[in-house]
């Protein structure tokens, strides 16, 4: 009832109404509403692509957050408050996703985890900033997100400049590559990683022969790849997501392109090897270590597999940590008001998460996440090939 009154009062609710109603059917509907006797629940907004082409990541993230919530609530909640998740499906679509921020404001959430895609997280963070609601990002890696001077924005995962740098160091110092051609999908995330790779590759003494954009919805890249082949680069770096990456390696190899293929954690899902087939084998992908490869995440992975009979995807561990970081902040603050949570989040230091330590710096970035280079094996699994942090 209370939510209903708020909806009517908010001018934006009308605009958001249809999108959120559609987005919430089936997701929120299935969510058991936990109300502890007496204490008000802590409402955490969770926004991810739960349907659409990036849903495999979003659903896994949602599962991970639910695991964390269940374990907190099983121990009586946080300071007597049960945790309640309000899920929102962004469909990985900016317009739909940004409407989610207004929806969370109208629902009076205490904190938000989201929004997966950088091009949604950045505008959404401005709306949450105006409303004074803390936002912890567990997958949006574009540096701009935390560079807007918003005191309410935090990020447990790494950033694209760190990722681009690891790829460049690997290409120059491990593969001893001299030349590279860079392609990106002209989206905030892909273009970001590619731009940082290109800058760092040049700084390390390499030469960028060409940097071009592609339309990720096309199926034929043969013309572009024919031009790439004629430049004979040592490296073909691509910033973007897996279906396009798979088509690029497949068509490139069949044209006789010999360059080593390097890409990012948008490509680490199974769609890359499905589309690329044998041509994907031997590709190098930069990513934070997946939960399965982290000793600290073993209990989390085991519990996840037991509960969902599936493996968690790349960002699931970060989402699990994001929820627990918020819970820790509430404990530190002895308050569930958004303003108090923001102050406590800024003080989070040496928090032990399943993905490693969480230390927020002055702009809200986690200073400890580490990137590694995976290699696609001949059985289509990914194996850590180079870890710049292991000495």
């Amino acid at each position, binding site marked *: 009832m209370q939510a209903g009154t708020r909806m009517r009062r908010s001018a934006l609710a009308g605009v958001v109404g249809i999108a959120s109603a559609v987005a919430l059917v089936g997701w929120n509907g299935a969510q058991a509403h936990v109300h502890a006797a007496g204490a008000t629940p802590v409402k955490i907004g969770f926004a991810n692509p739960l349907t659409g082409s990036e849903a495999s990541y979003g659903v896994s993230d949602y599962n991970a957050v639910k695991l964390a919530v269940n374990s907190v609530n099983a121990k009586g909640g946080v300071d007597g408050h049960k945790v309640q998740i309000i899920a929102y499906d962004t469909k990985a679509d900016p317009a739909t996703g940004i409407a989610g921020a207004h929806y969370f404001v109208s629902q009076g959430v205490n904190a938000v985890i989201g929004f997966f895609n950088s091009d949604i997280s950045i505008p959404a963070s401005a709306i949450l900033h105006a409303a004074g609601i803390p936002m912890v990002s567990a997958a949006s890696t574009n540096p701009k997100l935390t560079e807007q001077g918003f005191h309410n924005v935090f990020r447990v995962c790494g950033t694209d400049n760190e990722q681009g740098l690891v790829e460049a160091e690997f290409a120059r110092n491990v593969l001893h590559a001299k030349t590279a051609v860079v392609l990106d999908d002209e989206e905030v995330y892909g273009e970001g990683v590619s731009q940082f790779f290109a800058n760092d590759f040049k700084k390390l003494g390499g030469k960028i022969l060409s940097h071009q954009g592609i339309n990720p919805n096309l*199926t034929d890249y043969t*013309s572009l790849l024919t031009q790439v082949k004629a430049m004979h680069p040592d490296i073909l770096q691509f910033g973007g997501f897996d279906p396009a990456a798979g088509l690029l390696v*497949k068509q490139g190899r069949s044209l006789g392109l010999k360059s080593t293929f390097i890409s990012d954690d948008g490509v680490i899902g199974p769609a890359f090897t499905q589309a690329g087939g044998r041509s994907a084998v031997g590709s190098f992908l930069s990513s934070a270590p997946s939960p399965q490869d982290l000793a600290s995440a073993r209990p989390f992975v085991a519990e996840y597999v037991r509960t969902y009979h599936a493996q968690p995807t790349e960002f699931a561990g970060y989402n699990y940590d994001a929820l627990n970081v918020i819970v820790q902040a509430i404990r530190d603050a002895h308050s569930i008001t958004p303003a108090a949570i923001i102050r406590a989040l800024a003080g989070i230091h040496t928090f032990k998460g399943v993905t490693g330590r969480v230390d927020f710096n002055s702009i809200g970035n986690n200073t400890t996440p580490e990137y590694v280079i995976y290699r696609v094996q001949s059985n289509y699994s990914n194996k850590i090939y180079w870890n710049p942090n292991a000495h």
Partner: protein
Amino acid sequence: MGTLAQQLVNGVVIGAVYGLIALGYTMVYGIVRLINFAQGGLYAAGAFIGLEVVEILQAHRVESPALLILAALAGAMIATGALAFLVERVAYRPLRRAPILSALVSSLAVLFLIENVIQLLTGAQPQTYPSLLGLQPWTLGPITLAPSGLLIVLVALGLMGAMQWFVQRTRTGRAMRAIAVNQEVAGLMGVDVRRVVALTFVMGGALGAAAGVLVGLNYGTITFNMGELAGLEGFTAAVLGGIGNVPGALVGGLVLGLLQSLITIVLPNQWNEAVVFAVLIAVLAFRPRGILGERVAERA
């Protein structure tokens, strides 16, 4: 020079795909003067139905690639033809006397309806075609060509020839041309207008399905929304060649494909679509009815 030759090959292959999709637009437009935007949806439906046929046959231990490809093409063309028949009955026939804009919007609705049904049935993840023609492309000096690429070009040429023959040389083809000139009069002269119009849609659907299956075979990856962009490119090819003109569809497709390929030699890829569509505007400014001009009927 090797690069230029390879770009010509690339352009012909992708152009043949555009040409096949354009044929579907041109058939329907040439006869009923409707730009059937559902064509992109029928193309995607054909790709998914073809994959289903291949998977069912492979489950029954059919292994001959030639047989699988033929079955996928035939199955997809028949089933998508039937789907197009249904679409015509439900979404166009009731609008036959309505302003043409109503039918146009209806065709857009059908495109999104088909897309969403595919997504509901198969999920949003891209689906993978088995590589039936072998992974190894042929190489001739600096040029490489996938066997499936050649298949696309041959099928496109074959279907274009068949359509041209059908429209110009058969009794039903003559009925189609008569309807294109004047539906009322054709009806008065004893042509079964409803039946012939329905057949036109069925043929358009079957052509789209053939393109969908061939794209699946050649590129290996199909997505539920593949019809949006491809439909737009096919429509552009049809307009470029002269919409309603059967050989024009293939000519338009090849011009568009070659243009896209050759532009990548001189300009960064992100300029590609901007330049292609600028050329389209220029061509239409000088030849408003496309490169080959006239509609089906005017050739008679």
